[in-house]
């Protein structure tokens, strides 16, 4: 079981004030890891504040306006402004006289992340509130919550229980269907979700048109990450000014993060945007070649010293070419080799290509093989040049961002572990421990059924 803490710094009284009222989404620290039932949820957060599409009497402005003022962005990784997606779905629905659908994305197919499963497990009602409010905001008649098919906790069972509680309380106006995305890396991608829910395989499709215009059953479709919906449910209750009490002016609010420390501990924590990364990385041994992986397997390795000077917001991270993504921060233990770890993860990513686009189908296996050669000391002169060239060649040429993200990850490893690569080319490796550290699922898709 993954260690979970609702507030990373509850052991640090001095910093408590800067964190405002965190945790907002997860249950208070003193309540521990117990899932919140409906009674506990309503006692903590108050009733579900439905609005009309145009704003209920006595409530100035619609939810759309409040979300815009709050500056909420998608917490699934892309950080796209939520109000713009809501507005796009509303506009498409009006223009095409279609009733939209809303999909809550809890597929969390990134193996290094566990924040969505943790949120759904501990605070399912906050997500379900957000789903109802989002459905109301765009006038949707269909609401679907998608979870990952293969998680340690029985998240789907927890959600069924929560939906029964809500049915007994007559809380939900739009009935919620549950669905499970297959345990594949790309199955949580927006177009893959829509493809799967429409009866196809859970693999990405080619845009345009955007799914906000033409998504599930050709209806305008809003896909939001489950954490985003939980924030939305709190903004609807407490308003945009409250939301902005933590975070930075440009990137307000809090976010869930998955922190994997070098000592092997994993914590799911809720932090304000803009938190210095050194506060997340914790102490522990750091050497001159210590490294941190930001954003998971489509993210970037950075030298630990460089990462420690940055903060958890895109404004800061973009100076290093990195992004907040879904809030994954991993410290590489000093006894491991970054090239070996990256090669294992990239082999997995290559297997997880849906195999639909030529550059990804051809490029990723070559990249994975060359990286495995480099990691195992079997590289030849030119292997690193090949890796750079292929990484450039696959970027921007897929229907989805799988080749781009994989190439970014590989290039960052070649940069961050350049000294280690020199050593490998001389037949040496600095690792004293070759036990796998980065979580990489063993199974790979073998047949088309694996995508269903």
């Amino acid at each position, binding site marked *: 079981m993954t260690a979970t803490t609702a507030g990373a710094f509850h052991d640090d009284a001095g910093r408590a004030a800067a964190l405002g009222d965190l945790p907002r989404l997860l249950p208070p620290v003193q309540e521990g890891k117990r899932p919140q039932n409906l009674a506990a949820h309503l006692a903590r957060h108050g009733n579900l504040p439905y609005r009309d599409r145009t704003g209920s009497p006595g409530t100035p402005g619609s939810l759309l306006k409040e979300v815009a003022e709050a500056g909420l962005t998608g917490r699934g990784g892309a950080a796209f402004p939520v109000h713009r997606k809501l507005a796009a779905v509303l506009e498409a629905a009006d223009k095409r006289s279609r009733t939209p659908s809303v999909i809550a994305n809890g597929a969390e197919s990134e193996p290094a992340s566990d924040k969505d499963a943790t949120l759904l497990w501990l605070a399912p009602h906050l997500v379900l509130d957000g789903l109802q409010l989002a459905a109301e905001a765009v006038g949707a008649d269909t609401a679907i919550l998608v979870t990952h098919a293969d998680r340690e906790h029985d998240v789907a069972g927890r959600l069924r229980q929560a939906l029964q509680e809500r049915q007994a309380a007559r809380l939900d106006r739009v009935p919620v269907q549950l669905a499970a995305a297959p345990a594949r890396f790309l199955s949580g991608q927006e177009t893959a979700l829509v493809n799967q829910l429409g009866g196809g395989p859970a693999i990405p499709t*080619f845009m345009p048109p955007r799914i906000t215009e033409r998504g599930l059953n050709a209806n305008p479709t809003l896909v939001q990450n489950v954490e985003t919906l939980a924030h939305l449910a709190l903004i609807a209750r407490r308003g945009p000014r409250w939301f902005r009490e933590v975070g930075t002016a440009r990137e307000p609010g809090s976010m869930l993060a998955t922190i994997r420390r070098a000592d092997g501990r994993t914590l799911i924590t809720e932090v304000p945007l803009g938190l210095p990364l050194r506060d997340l990385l914790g102490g522990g041994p750091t050497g001159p070649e210590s490294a941190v992986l930001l954003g998971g397997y489509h993210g970037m390795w950075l030298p630990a010293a460089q990462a420690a000077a940055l903060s958890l917001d895109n404004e800061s991270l973009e100076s290093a070419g990195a992004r907040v993504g879904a809030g994954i921060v991993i410290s590489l233990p000093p006894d491991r080799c970054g090239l070996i770890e990256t090669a294992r993860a990239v082999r997995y990513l290559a297997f997880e290509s849906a195999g639909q686009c030529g550059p990804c189908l051809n490029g990723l296996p070559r990249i994975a093989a060359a990286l495995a050669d480099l990691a195992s000391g079997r590289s030849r002169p030119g292997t690193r040049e090949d890796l750079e060239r292929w990484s450039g*060649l696959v970027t921007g040429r897929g229907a989805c961002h799988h080749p781009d993200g994989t190439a970014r990850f590989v290039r960052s490893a070649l940069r961050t572990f350049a000294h280690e690569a020199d050593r490998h080319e001389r037949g040496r490796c600095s690792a004293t421990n070759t036990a796998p550290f980065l979580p990489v699922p063993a199974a790979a898709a073998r047949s088309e059924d694996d995508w269903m």
Partner: protein
Amino acid sequence: MAEQLLVNPIDCEGHGACAELLPEMITIDEWGYPIIDPRPLPPGLERHARKAVNACPTLALRLLRTPDR
């Protein structure tokens, strides 16, 4: 109104007809798949571009109108 080439990478099977007809805008990578110049189509190439689009056996290549900036 400018025009821009767009390939659907899922439909594309790397037949390569497009690059033969429009080498000014399309080259072939080491696996046989087209690399499309993302810039607007320069004047004078419209006819060749349309030929390339029509020659694609999987209908993967399209000409999109892009609003003038």
